[in-house]
């Protein structure tokens, strides 16, 4: 009995630690990975974000994906969530993805000109 109780305790402790770890991500970066996003190059964006996050040593950032966000013409889309703030970057390429990590995630500066369509 003792060992089972110990096991339960241990499991509970590990679960709580995992919850803490999940909450530890104060910033979430989401890449749209619907058919439209993939065709527009979302996969390259994930790779570029990962590489730059590694370069910058970011451990408190969660990188995740979502499906089509309904803005297919602006793909690839990268959304940065920090607390209640939500910023969506449109038409992201590899270079922009790296800049988003450096400027937005590391320095905390939103790159406003990449959040709205360019005027032609």
């Amino acid at each position, binding site marked *: 009995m003792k060992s089972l109780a110990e096991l339960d305790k241990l499991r509970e402790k590990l679960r709580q630690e995992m919850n803490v770890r999940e909450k530890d991500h104060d910033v979430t970066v989401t890449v749209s990975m619907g058919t439209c996003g993939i065709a527009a190059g979302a*996969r390259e964006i994930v*790779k570029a974000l*990962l590489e730059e996050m590694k370069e910058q040593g970011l451990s408190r950032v969660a990188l995740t994906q979502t499906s089509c966000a309904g803005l297919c013409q602006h793909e690839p889309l990268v959304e940065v969530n920090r607390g209640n703030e939500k910023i969506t970057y449109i038409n992201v390429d590899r270079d922009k993805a790296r800049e988003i990590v450096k400027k937005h995630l590391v320095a905390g500066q939103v790159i406003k000109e990449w959040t709205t369509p360019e005027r032609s």
Partner: protein
Amino acid sequence: MEDLSQHILDIAFNSLEAGATDLTITVREDTVANILAFGVLDNGRGITQNDIPKITDPFFTTKKHKRVGLGVPLLQEAVQRCGGNLEIKALPRKGTSVTAVFPHDHLDRAPLGDITGTLIALITGRQPVNLTYRHKYNNRNFLFNTRKLCIHLGAIPLQTPEVLVWLQNYLDENIANLRRETNEELGRTG
């Protein structure tokens, strides 16, 4: 879509959206039999028999927030362009299998492309999935499984950027090695 691995990512992402926790991706290249085939197998919520004929219709989708579903129709187009074959099956218990077969040497067959990028993109994200990747090139095999890697990593999450960048290099190297011809195969004797 520029390459087949983008189609694989698209189909496999459907699996994740269907709640799959197990995902098996296979690529089989047989240059003698002139076949390049890929398969995506999942344990997601599956597809009904009624929906299977509809899935190649670009205006059919089960998703509520949109009116088109282009993933499978685009894949079908890529298959038909070079006289290949696409098969979508509901698995007996739960899940779906998608298999696409192409003539390896057909000029209109899209290249396989960045399969590593596809695998990395699937592993990234917080939805835990046990991903198995099997790649057979003629008589050579490469097998990769996230569960084994996680055991190896212990407490370190697979999603850590450093781990994923390492994994990218590992997969790239192993998949490239499949196609590397040995001196014997080139007919050199030394």
